[in-house]
């Protein structure tokens, strides 16, 4: 066991997979010599050389497209989008090609690519460095979207993503990179994609969320525990396709459900979670399904006061959770 930050878990998983399987290679902007703008690929260029850690031009459509082509030929590319915000030029490649190739070719071809991208706000990154983009891809069967919340989950899930025979979008919260640290086993392990994880057992209210918001909810839960409010927290981990059984079980457990995302509220992942609960849990529900999310404005503002207004934080979680508990 070693204490590892969230971003170190990314680097470790990449390195171990590259050692394990020589078909694994990395491509992206500044991932080589520089080691990535966040240092996620630090040291890999020196260890594996320029043919396995490729610096690309500033062309996201090519990063995805080259990766998809290589994947179809049997390679295991890990493409990095420098920021999730920059993934938009690659959307056509991802949705029209990566997601659909297996279906279109009747199983003759598959695309085992992993596309990593840092997402999320609260870092004074403003418009182009703060967005959550998962909902753009979350109704494209053929894709998987993984959004881990802890260093332990990062290592196990990134390995699983690389070994998966189909395209996986792997969104890492950039604020979590250096904020979150925990013991991570040194041995090789994978965690199942498509499975949610109970991060805290509780009996009064259920919080279902993912990414950095899991921590906000956990912090709020610790405070509320002092008031006798016992929160059950489910971390989705994979936001597409959703782990319906786990969602239904968690929602039914307490009948009072709060869904949290830092994405804009309308059309977000949690809207689909709410629909699953509404379809399956009516007679266990004890309160309206509650959502805590970013406001429906075009982007994360830059001004600190406005950014605080936009971002979910532990205080907002605490208030929403208390409101729900008191309902």
């Amino acid at each position: 066991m070693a204490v590892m930050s969230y971003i170190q878990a990314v680097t470790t998983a990449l390195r171990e997979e590259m050692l394990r399987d020589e078909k694994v290679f990395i491509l992206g902007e500044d991932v080589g010599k520089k080691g990535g703008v966040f240092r996620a690929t630090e040291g890999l260029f020196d260890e594996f050389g320029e043919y396995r850690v490729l610096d690309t031009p500033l062309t996201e459509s090519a990063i995805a497209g080259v990766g998809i082509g290589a994947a179809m030929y049997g390679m295991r590319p890990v493409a990095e989008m420098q920021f999730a915000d920059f993934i938009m030029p690659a959307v056509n490649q991802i949705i029209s090609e990566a997601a659909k190739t297996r279906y279109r070719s009747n199983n003759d071809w598959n695309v085992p690519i992993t596309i990593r991208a840092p997402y999320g706000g609260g870092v004074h990154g403003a418009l182009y460095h703060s967005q959550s983009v998962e909902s753009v891809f979350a109704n494209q069967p053929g894709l998987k979207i993984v959004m881990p919340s802890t260093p332990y989950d990062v290592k196990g899930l990134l390995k699983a993503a690389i070994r998966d025979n189909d395209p996986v979008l792997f969104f890492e919260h950039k604020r979590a990179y250096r904020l979150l640290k925990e013991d991570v086993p040194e041995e090789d392990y994978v965690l199942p994609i498509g499975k949610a994880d109970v991060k805290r057992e509780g009996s009064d209210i259920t919080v279902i969320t993912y990414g950095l918001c899991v921590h906000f909810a956990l912090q709020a839960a610790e405070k509320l525990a002092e008031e006798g409010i016992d929160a059950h927290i489910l971390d989705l981990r994979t936001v597409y396709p959703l782990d319906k059984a786990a969602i239904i079980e968690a929602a039914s457990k307490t009948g009072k459900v709060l869904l949290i995302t830092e994405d804009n509220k309308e059309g977000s992942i949690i809207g689909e979670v709410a629909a699953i609960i509404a379809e399956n849990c009516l007679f266990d529900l004890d309160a309206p399904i509650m959502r805590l999310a970013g406001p429906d404005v075009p982007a994360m503002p830059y001004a600190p006061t406005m950014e605080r207004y936009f971002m979910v934080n532990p205080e907002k979680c605490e208030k929403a959770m208390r409101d729900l508990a008191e309902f």
Partner: protein
Amino acid sequence: MGTENITMPQLGESVTEGTISSWLVKEGDKVTKYDPIAEVLTDKVNAEVPSSFSGIIKELVAKEGETISVGEIMCTMETEEKGIDQKEATIEPPRNNSDFNKSDETSKKRYSPAVLRLAQENDIELTQINGTGKGGRITRKDVERVISSKPSVSKDVPNQQSSPSISNPKPHRTVSDESPDTSINTGDMEIPVTGVRKAIAENMVISKQEIPHAWMTVEADVTDLVSYRNLVKNEFIHSEGFNLTYFAFFIKAVAQALKKFPELNSTWQHDKIIQRKAINLSIAVAVEDKLFVPVIKNADEKTIKGIAREVYELSEKAKNHKLTTEDMQGGTFTVNNTGTFGSIHSMGIINHPQAAILQVESIVKRPVIIDNMFAARDMVNLSLSLDHRVLDGLVCGRFLAYLKEKLENMNETSIQMF
């Protein structure tokens, strides 16, 4: 002058902490705004931190080599000017005061799907549970607590043949649990319950379940009223074009009595009683299988003739299905003309959310003893149903006594028709 804190700035995206590699100032140093005060090392950058204020360094809170989180205090300063208010606009969650739940019962009857299901599966009478939720709402946990402490609150319903084992409740009760006597036999007719019938049924159930009814009846001698009405009725229909019914006189008298006893002109609102100023009398009008309750607004301000006209118009409208919602809204007390059906005594169901209903029974000629002699008099029973939460026997008795007096004194000289 004031003391300000200089906090660890955010030195890049994803950076959450920084290490003070060296202080460029010491305590007591005078610095001006934007002067570098410290070198800070993060895992992304090495940067100088500028002062946010002009003033004198008071205390270096963080030591060299120490790693602190973004937003934590690095040092404090005595400033010359009023600095920027660095206090974060924290969102203060509104605290519930502890007796919030006790006084507010507005959501006591708002049952969630989970609560209703648990109550049905376990035969729990929800009205006997104290809710701990917002507005006195009964939460799923409240019901679960009761279930785990059964059978203390469980209610034994006598009609248990349909589900013999209460000790072992089925998880989901199905429609096939119907008791045998509701099955359809040959020749039976099934009448779907819709529209007005359904609304009537629902209102009656609400009223009967919620309101603790109590009843009182007095009899009034209306011989003088009857003779007066007989005297003028033919002329009235000639000149006005519609019948002069006894009912109009009763409504007038009730309106006057309500003016004197406004307690009866009120409504129960859980934690308060609202006494209505306007006297709007609902009158029940039956049309075949339907029952309408149009309203005579401000009845106390109307003449007997005006009331008679309105009763006539409203019943015509009811017969022709022309009553509007407007016609039926705002009633504060109901007068029910049960006498039309020949009834001499009845116990009405209060028109929820009003506090009382008066049944005006049939006027019948009866032998009555006056001054130790038999006399043939026109007698009428007035039956009052009252909401015992709002009203007691005393005030209702006085109301009925006053009403009786008013009616018994209605005669040729006292009645003002117009």
